[in-house]
């Protein structure tokens, strides 16, 4: 820079005043944002208020919160002391919601991509321009190819309203929710096919005698009231059985840790059941009364001796027997946990069916410590988009395997394959709402191919993520701390306590900033512009919640006056309904060409030189959703690679070595991580946290931190009954970097 005039000299000479365009004229064109206000003496103190009605969404568990708010700024989040669920407790992530709220990398304004998909260049635009563009482009796709040509990838409470608009009213069946197709859909459908209800995580752990976990790693997997139930059970003396190839946080507390060969769980479950039946150690009366097709089932699993399973599962016969005997000795007061994220090996429906059947064999329904669904409040009204008269053309009707037991929506790979091949029909418009399909759906290359061929991609989110890089229009949504949407209901966490029910609608703790909008507003505006204005079911988020609450004689104002949670007397959840059935042998499955009794389907084992890639949760993260959170990343910002100590010494790896991973298809991780050498994992597997290593450089903290396990899951496994993905059938080797 040249030698400049000093500011004082410049102002003195004031030559600018004589310039042809006076600054004053230019400045006068726009109004200043700073205006005269009543004088507030310096040092005057602003009170911190407690704002009630928060419902956490740092994970799906939805603990009830209060916010400490000073002068419009959220300074702290706490558990709502009135809560009979999480109580005053929240987890690290719940606490760190403040950092999500005020993350400078958060989406702030609607933007259009003036660069390329995958390599975006953003331009802030007005909401009008954004909505007009989305409406026109989506309408064009529908007009040209029909409503089915829209693919919807939603996630989270705020995504239901928009995706129901597209599914019911616009008429596309091509909706793929990660929480179904890459998570719990398999569990829900398997239990539906066995006990005719999705199980939730409804086991009465505080009052049980045995907790049986298959892969559940509580402690690393943190959901406050769930953890309270589990810990109360242990405190009350419950025995803990943990089946996991890894010495997880739960395994560390277990009475029996079963380090099973990955993918073989069903074999073990069948052997346990067979042993119990053969030795008359099962709940015969219960089975008589509620079982259906038990004989065929018992006959069909006969081949599963303890010895056969032991060989398959690579565990001692004695250990399977020990587990079976422990369960038998304590039945029916045993908690066979249904799990939650169960999309593992592509044979998962069968394993989940086996778990439900095991619960039946032990008679562990409706009694203390068993499978006991809570009796929560009833009567909330529904507000939903009406169904149009379009008869949707289903991709499953064209598929070799129609996945007859698919959870609601369309199996992801049917959508993705149709998009890539254009067959049986083209998929040309994509709406992504709160989901990050790059990190939820295996085989990223295919996902990117699907996106590249779209005519239009619209994304709504709170933060930039991997997927937002592929948007044409990117819309900023209010976070869970700034909106109304979900109404959380439930009961007191421990059934041994006084029976109570609660209703806690999510209310904002602070106002939204920038131009962030709630999902109902965005959807309604879009619907109007697409010509569906007359079908709009509710005018705004407040009306929506009030309408729903009116069904139980409540309102937002009433509940706010009750400190954010309405509590009412509850009902005894124990007991078995008369129409309870445990379907051991399912004819519908048989008719559809699937095994009618739980059946073990072996999966490929690790090829020479490779180990199976297992993934799980970090206690302080919710997968990639917390990847840019300053506090949580300060606590854990990497994905240590768990490696068996014997393997490590054989291959020459030491604790702390920096490695990259390379999978069976030669795909290398983009980033590196350090090795954690431990006897606490089998020799045929490695383990990392899921949800790290984001490719989006807009995430100042999260970009490229740790290894993105999904990038290494290239080989696809699809569960035949449900069409859900199995994501633990890929194998990696470690490559030393330093």
């Amino acid at each position, binding site marked *: *820079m*040249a030698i*400049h*005039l000093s*500011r*004082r000299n*410049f*102002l*003195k000479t*004031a*030559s*600018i005043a004589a*310039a*042809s*365009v*006076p*600054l004053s*004229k*230019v400045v006068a064109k*726009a*109004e200043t*944002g*700073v*205006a*005269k*206000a009543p*004088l*507030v*003496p*310096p040092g005057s103190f602003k009170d911190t208020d407690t704002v009630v009605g928060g419902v956490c969404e740092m994970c799906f568990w939805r603990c009830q919160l209060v916010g400490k708010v*000073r*002068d419009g*700024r959220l300074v702290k989040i706490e558990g709502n002391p009135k809560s009979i669920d999480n109580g005053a407790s929240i987890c690290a992530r719940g606490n760190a919601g403040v*950092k999500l*709220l*005020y*993350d*400078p*990398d*958060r*989406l*702030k*304004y609607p*933007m259009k991509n003036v660069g390329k998909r995958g390599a*975006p*260049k*953003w*331009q*802030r635009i007005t909401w009008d321009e954004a909505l007009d563009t989305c409406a026109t482009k989506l309408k064009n796709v529908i007009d040209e190819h029909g409503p089915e040509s829209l693919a919807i990838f939603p996630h989270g409470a705020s995504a239901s309203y928009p995706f129901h608009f597209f599914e019911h009213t616009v008429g596309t069946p091509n909706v793929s929710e990660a929480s179904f197709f890459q998570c719990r859909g398999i569990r829900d459908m398997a239990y539906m096919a066995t006990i005719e209800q999705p199980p939730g995580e409804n086991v009465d752990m505080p009052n049980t005698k045995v907790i049986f976990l298959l892969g559940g790693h509580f402690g690393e997997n943190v959901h406050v009231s769930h953890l309270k139930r589990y810990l109360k059970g242990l405190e009350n003396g419950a025995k803990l059985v943990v089946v996991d190839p890894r010495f997880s946080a739960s395994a560390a507390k277990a009475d029996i840790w079963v380090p099973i060969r990955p993918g073989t769980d069903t074999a073990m479950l069948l052997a346990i059941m067979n042993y119990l039946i053969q030795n008359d150690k099962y709940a015969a009366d219960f089975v008589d009364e509620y079982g259906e097709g038990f004989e065929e089932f018992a006959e069909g699993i006969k081949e599963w001796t303890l010895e056969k399973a032991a060989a398959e599962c690579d565990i001692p016969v004695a250990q399977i027997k020990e587990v079976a005997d422990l369960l038998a000795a304590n039945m029916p007061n045993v908690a066979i946990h249904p799990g939650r994220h169960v999309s593992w090996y592509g044979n998962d429906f069968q394993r989940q069916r086996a778990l439900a059947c095991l619960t039946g064999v032990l008679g562990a329904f409706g009694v203390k410590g068993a499978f006991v669904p809570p009796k929560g409040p009833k009567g909330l009204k529904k507000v939903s988009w009406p169904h149009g008269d379009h008869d949707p053309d289903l991709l499953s009707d064209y598929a070799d395997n129609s996945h007859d037991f698919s959870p609601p929506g369309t199996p992801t790979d049917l959508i993705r394959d149709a998009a890539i091949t254009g067959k049986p029909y083209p998929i040309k418009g994509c709406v992504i709402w709160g989901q990050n399909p790059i990190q939820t759906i295996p085989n990223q290359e295919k996902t990117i191919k699907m996106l590249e061929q779209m005519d239009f991609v619209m994304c709504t989110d709170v933060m*930039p993520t991997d997927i937002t890089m592929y948007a044409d229009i990117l819309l900023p949504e209010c976070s869970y701390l700034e909106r109304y949407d979900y109404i959380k209901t439930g009961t007191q966490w421990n059934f041994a306590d006084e029976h109570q029910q609660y209703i806690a609608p999510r209310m904002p703790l602070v106002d939204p*900033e*920038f131009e962030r909008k709630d999902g109902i507003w965005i959807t309604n505006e879009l619907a109007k512009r697409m010509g569906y204005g007359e079908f709009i079911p509710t005018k705004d988020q407040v009306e929506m919640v009030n309408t729903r609450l009116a069904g139980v004689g409540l309102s937002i104002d009433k509940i706010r006056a009750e400190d954010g949670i309405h509590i009412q007397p509850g009902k005894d959840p124990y007991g078995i309904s008369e129409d309870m059935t445990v379907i051991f042998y399912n004819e519908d499955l048989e008719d559809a060409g699937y095994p009618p009794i739980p059946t073990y389907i072996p999966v490929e084992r690790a090829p020479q030189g490779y180990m199976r890639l297992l993934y799980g949760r970090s206690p302080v993260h919710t997968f990639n959703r917390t990847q840019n959170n*300053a*506090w949580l990343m*300060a606590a854990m910002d990497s994905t240590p690679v768990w490696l068996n100590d014997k393997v490590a010494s054989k291959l020459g790896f030491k604790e702390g070595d920096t490695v990259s991973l390379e999978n069976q298809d030669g795909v290398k991780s983009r980033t590196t991580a350090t090795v954690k050498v431990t006897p606490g994992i089998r020799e045929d597997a490695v383990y990392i946290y899921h949800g790290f290593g984001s490719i989006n*450089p*807009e*995430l*100042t903290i999260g*970009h490229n931190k740790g290894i993105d396990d999904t990038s290494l899951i290239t080989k696809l496994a699809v569960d035949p009954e449900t069409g859900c993905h199995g994501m633990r059938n890929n194998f990696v080797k470690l490559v030393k970097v330093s």
Partner: protein
Amino acid sequence: MHSTESQAPKLETELSTEASLLSEIYGFLALAMRYPDSSFLDGQFLDAYEALLQSLEWKEEYADMQKWRSQTGDFLNDLQIEYTQLFINASPGTTIPPYASVYMDGDRSIQGKTTEKIKDFYRSCGYEVTSSTEPPDHIQHELEFLAALAGENRREEETLFLHSLFRPWFIRFLKHSIQEARHPFYRVSIQLIDFFTKEEQ
């Protein structure tokens, strides 16, 4: 005594001319830091911008601006993309958030303790940020506030604000912007802000 008395009114006039010019400059720079739209960011704005550079004798910067203006097909569009890249969201990750709290509060946060302090300072001077989608510690609002203070010739408060609440974060922002702000308009604007807010030696 006599001579001092006669000089006093003259000094005041001079000061207030200076102050009102400074107020205009702050106001002008505040606009440069605001998301550009056609209501204010037009040819006339850029003419005034160039005039300011000329009268400051910032020849190189003036030339850069002229060059850009002669090359760009659509200056508003250009600036909107550039603004979004620099101050809102960008890939590759090169944003420099224009908020004091992000630089002052240790853990990169919008609406931090500093935001609160700045808001309180505004209020203690009888001002408040209204009708804005941005937090009060956005550089645009800080400059608007400085414009308001200068317009009332409140030198002491202006100096105090610059010293305690503006410069400490601005110098960090400036350092980042030197690495990131490649576009002449924003690079030069930030230099201008530096020039007009720097304490005189």
